[in-house]
């Protein structure tokens, strides 16, 4: 009789884990594939042919470069601010054992929930 190691995962568990991981990357592969398709307006699959035309078309547009520069600049500024505010919060949370971070964590969780609504209100607040 063959004994299994006490914590050996079953084949099912292993397969399930890798299947979920594959599921999480499916759209990435799809986007990469469709960057090369010759189909113009349809979502045809499998692609009728492969081409590099879309890269040429994208790089030829000036607005894409401007948008990329702006995105990079905004991302850099936002990152700096997030690092400063985030690390300050974490440091103080660690220094305050009595509050247990429960309520502060809750407030932060709350922030994620209605970001869209607040975005639009901020737009219209006057």
């Amino acid at each position, binding site marked *: 009789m063959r004994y299994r190691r*006490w*914590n*050996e*995962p*079953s084949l099912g*568990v*292993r397969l*399930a*884990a890798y299947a*979920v*991981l594959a*599921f*999480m*990357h*499916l*759209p*990435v592969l*799809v*986007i990469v594939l*469709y960057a090369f398709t010759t189909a113009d307006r*349809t*979502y*045809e*699959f*499998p692609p009728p042919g492969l081409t590099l035309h879309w890269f040429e078309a994208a790089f030829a547009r000036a607005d894409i470069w401007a948008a990329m520069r702006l995105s990079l600049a905004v991302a850099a500024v936002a990152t700096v601010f997030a690092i*400063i*505010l*985030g690390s*300050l*919060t974490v*440091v*103080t949370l660690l*220094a*305050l054992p009595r509050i*247990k*971070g*429960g309520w502060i*964590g*809750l*407030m932060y*969780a*709350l*922030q*994620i*929930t*209605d*970001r*869209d*609504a*607040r975005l*639009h*209100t*901020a*737009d*219209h*607040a006057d």
Partner: protein
Amino acid sequence: MRALSTFLYRRPNLYILLLLIPPLLWFGTVYLGSLFTLLAQSMYAIDEFTAKVVYEPTLATYKQVVTQPANVDIIVRTLSMAVAVTIACGLIALPIANYMVRYASPRARAFFYVGVMLPMWMSYLVKVYAWRLILAKQGILSWLLDVVGLGAALDAVLRIPGIGGPSLSASYLGMFIVFVYMWLPFMILPLAAALEKVPESLLQASADLGARPVQTFRRVTLPLALPGLAAGSVFTFSLTLGDYIIPSVVGAPGYFIGMMVYQQQGTAGNIPLAAAFSVVPIVLIMIYLAIARRAGAFDAL
């Protein structure tokens, strides 16, 4: 400089307060400020004839939200989707989170962590449109199912009233798949963090006492990982309630709360109604947070 640091070192509370001021200031203005503006807006109502906002406090807009059948439909639809997505995310996240922290070798574990986080770094919109390609009528999924001979099964599923539709990309089922996909990392990561804290000695003890792996999982691992599950569910639940992009790109034409807010504050120009509508998820989430807090969700964050 030295005097200052000594001074602060002797007064740890003042020091902490000074550190807390910038985040609190940010939190206060950006978050609470906009939240209270929102609440204030929802207390007004729009004049039916002039389509202008009447700046007098009233609860008429709230009444409109909770009594008009069309509005109640939107709330129920969004809430059911959020519950379904949360349950599905929990079920899908459990095996992978458990595998990556418990069984995978250190290398495989790093691979899994990067693999789970990688999709989060990709543009949200790109992923949504990728799913539209996958779920479209002539798209990848229907092609794949045809190849393996399950095309008829897909058609049968799409004929189910309520979740079906002309194609996956125009059905609630398709929208559900995209929601689950989008929020899965938000469930896996807190769950993995909670599972990591489960001491291996307890699992060994359970095995020693004769429990089968399934029994150990159900009676030892799962109860101890509950805070992680609760924390992840807060994310999946609230993100589904607030989202307005996925329902407008994929899925059946029925409105969701986020879309209603977007439309009312934009083209329809009814800011009070939009504000009252966005208070609905806030209330729902507060109720949910109260439940999750009892399950220890914030000890795992």
